[in-house]
């Protein structure tokens, strides 16, 4: 299994996705640092960007950009094996189908979350060096906020992995993962139009992806934080279990 992961690391740093991930990540970070303004993507989530927090913390509230950037590591690790049909080389010579699933899942999770943390810490240290303590928090406080978001990103990457094994085709995987949060927001805004569905829409709003990422960074109640972690844990567990069961029954 370690061999599979070593091989993936060797290959993934040669992909376009690797370069795009770091270029976009650096561009967003450097623009934000230069303008003293948080940069990234919002999907109409309920977040107060003018909260009395320093730039680095508010920037973590905009981490939805990593939802889209983390598609690339999962795509390069798993979907590429299906689209290039190289999966049969691995399964016929290196590992069984079951081990393939575990090795790919573990690597995609570790690698994606590693990228997420590295990119954020890179932002933190550059921001601290360029803008000083006026715009940056102590490392401990920043780490607490960042690791507080980690369960949500574990759930996101787990869901991506499940979808990669489920769809196998690159186009289907990309379309679904890119459109899902947009569709969620669209359905939510539609429901707000109906009085009878307002309560459901408000609940949906609470657990909308950019709301969760933003609130967990900038500030939220303890119960909300626990609820976010429960939702994330359920998504992670269901994605992993369902992904494995479907994968075991599938023909390569």
């Amino acid at each position, binding site marked *: 299994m370690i061999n599979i992961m070593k091989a993936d690391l060797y290959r993934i740093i040669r992909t*376009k996705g690797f370069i795009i991930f770091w270029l976009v990540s650096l561009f967003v970070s450097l623009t934000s640092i230069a303008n003293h303004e948080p940069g990234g993507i919002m999907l109409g989530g309920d977040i107060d960007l003018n909260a009395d927090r320093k730039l680095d913390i508010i920037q973590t509230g905009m981490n939805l950009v990593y939802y889209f950037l983390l598609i690339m590591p999962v795509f390069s690790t798993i979907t590429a094996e299906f689209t290039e049909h190289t999966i049969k080389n691995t399964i*016929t*010579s290196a590992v069984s189908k079951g081990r393939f699933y575990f090795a790919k899942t573990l690597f995609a999770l570790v690698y994606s979350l590693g990228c997420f943390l590295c990119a954020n810490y890179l932002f933190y240290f550059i921001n601290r060096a360029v803008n000083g303590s006026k715009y940056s928090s102590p490392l401990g406080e920043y780490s607490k906020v960042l690791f507080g978001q980690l369960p949500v990103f574990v759930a996101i990457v787990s869901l991506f992995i499940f979808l990669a094994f489920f769809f196998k085709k690159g186009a289907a995987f990309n379309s679904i993962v890119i459109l899902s949060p947009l569709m969620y927001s669209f359905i939510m805004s539609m429901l707000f139009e109906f009085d009878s569905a307002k309560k459901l829409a408000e609940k949906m709003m609470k657990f909308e992806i950019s709301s969760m990422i933003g609130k967990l960074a900038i500030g939220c109640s303890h119960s909300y934080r626990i609820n976010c972690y429960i939702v994330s844990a359920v998504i992670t567990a269901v994605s992993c279990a369902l992904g494995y069961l479907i994968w075991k029954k599938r023909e390569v």
Partner: protein
Amino acid sequence: MREIVLQTKKLTKSYGRSTALDHADMTVYKGDIYGLIGRNGAGKTTMMKLVTGLTDPTNGEYSLFGKTGMAADREKRRIGCLIESPAFFGNMTAYQNLRYYCYQKGIADRRQIDEVLELVNLSDARNKKFKTFSLGMKQRLGIAFAVLDNPDIVILDEPINGLDPIGISELRETFRRLSQERGMTLIISSHILSELYAVANRFMFIESGKVLKEVSKSELDLECSRCITIGTDDTAKASNILERKLGITDYKVIDSREIRIYDEKVKPNIVNKTLVQNDVDVMKIHESGVSLEDYFKQLVGEVKS
């Protein structure tokens, strides 16, 4: 006794109502160059997919190096294969692709990459991206991948596809070298009978998922060579007369009702006359001898009828 490296027993694979492989028995001995012959969709690739673990059998079992079940799964590391078309990462070079698989297989000695690239005449293209390769080059890289870690068994699915005549003859030589110099057992599938005949020493004919026949090259030669076929219900007496009265020694008793004479100088009318004169009932006597293609057509015809 020769060591059996791969054996399947009543191996069956069904997809819904259709059966891709039906109770297939196959025996491959160490050092064999084993040819799987069948038309497109006959079940050759399914057989290969089953023994390499790409798909699970619906019924039946197989043994690898005498081991079955989970133990056989562990022995799969001793197999190198190229199933269907060769697949590699297009944005990586031939060397990088093979290095990727070196990492996967835990091969520390990187010199093996250049060795296998040289074996398949791809040394000059080692730094070319896979997406720029011709079909023949892709096939050759697929073979390089299959033999990368010096496996005991190499399984190649239609490796001749897309190769030009020179490429095919070079590949034939490569197969011989792999078998003779490295002691590898090769299982090669193809629908081009003449090409398989040129390299293999044992054959399996397969059609509509069913194994028609498993024969050695010498048996196949006998089956296809020109001969006089005699149908009689007393083969013992007939063979005695052939030897004593006509001095024929180059013949074979096929079963209790059939004898074949391979001596080209023998005339059927004389054989017939001699047998009848010696009170042997001759039910049929005719000259036969078929090409490989005709032999295969006959086999397929027998199954269909």
